[in-house]
């Protein structure tokens, strides 16, 4: 299902297109550095708005990443047919490649946010890393699903349809960042795992049944 040659191609394209790595990441870094100075004129953000702003940055960053390079359906179909590549292989390989590109960037974003706003982690590193990994997987699969299987593939439609879904995924991370106790954290992680499995099952069902 996951083909190395597709992952290699997607990662090569990411570096050569200079989109996320060289445009979005520095933009977000500047935002994070400037935000506390602009909002409160100091490198310290009050705890009550810390979480909302961090979630907001996460959603903005994920949205920018999602709309950075929309797929052209006609070009994609031609490319896949020319290479006799199955859509299901392409979908999961591209998902793997995007997770590989996006996950380290989100972690970097969170570290920068935490560092520049002088806010420490309220939950364990493993819980936060897992929650962010689930967030990455879900947002990337939803985004690719919209681009590959629907005609909602232009930036505006992507933005209006996908952002509410991302907000839902991001809100699920909030309790884990707030630092709820271990048992509740585990329940939230299990919920996130369940949602990831539902999204995976739905896309898999659609991929197998689509012509």
């Amino acid at each position: 299902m996951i083909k190395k040659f597709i992952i290699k191609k997607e990662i090569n394209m990411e570096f050569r297109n200079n989109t996320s790595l060289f445009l979005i990441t520095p933009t977000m870094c500047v935002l994070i550095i400037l935000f506390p100075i602009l909002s409160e004129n100091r490198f310290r953000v009050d705890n009550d708005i810390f979480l909302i702003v961090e979630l907001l940055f996460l959603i903005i960053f994920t949205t920018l990443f999602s709309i950075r390079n929309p797929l052209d359906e006609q070009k994609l179909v031609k490319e896949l047919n020319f290479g006799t590549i199955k859509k299901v292989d392409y979908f999961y390989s591209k998902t793997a490649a995007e997770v590989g590109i996006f996950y380290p960037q989100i972690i970097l974003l969170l570290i920068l946010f935490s560092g520049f706003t002088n806010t420490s982690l309220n939950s364990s590193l493993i819980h936060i890393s897992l929650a962010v990994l689930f967030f990455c997987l879900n947002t990337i699969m939803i985004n690719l699903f919209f681009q590959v299987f629907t005609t909602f593939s232009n930036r505006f439609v992507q933005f209006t349809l996908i952002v509410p879904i991302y907000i839902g995924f991001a809100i699920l991370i909030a309790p884990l960042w707030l630092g709820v106790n271990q048992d509740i954290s585990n329940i939230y992680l299990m919920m996130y795992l369940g949602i990831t499995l539902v999204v995976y099952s739905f896309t898999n069902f659609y991929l197998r049944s689509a012509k």
Partner: protein
Amino acid sequence: MSLIFKSKNLSLGYGNQLVIKNKDISLELSKNYEIIGKNGSGKTTLIMCISNNFIGNTFKSGIERGNNSIIEIGSTPSLVPKMSLIENINYFLHNENLVDENVIEILNKYELYNFKDDLIEEFSSGMVKRSEIAIADIKNPDVLCVDEPVVYLDENGVKLLFDLFSKRESLGKTTILSSQESINALDNVERTINLND
């Protein structure tokens, strides 16, 4: 005979606008076909539909397809512009790092070896078409569809393309061509689909 594509009353279009109307088309493996028609008659649309690259309205045409490998060399290139020729070859051949003797031989045959590390976006239209023909030669699919075969190619490129058609005929592979008029590139043509009618 193994089926490639079959449709009774094939109608194709974009939105509600019909480009091809009520055509009966049945294509079988190991036979060659030609599609001819003037500009706007639907040649490209039909060849894209046959090669499963058509994105538009099929108006419930009841299309049946065989389980064959089909490659289309169309009016717009299928290669990835931001990758080099050799990277494209590796990608389309499903390999990670392959430069074997067969690939080198074919790149030399199509006079592309010296350009193998250049990006496709830096190629001329003729070079892109040559590259696609070289990849089709390496992949050797059951069915090769070529839209406007001689467009962008120089004299030597046309000769190489016609040699490929001859090789495919001798191997019993199907070639489908579309052009404004017959270019006599195939020795045995089972049916000429005239879209001017």
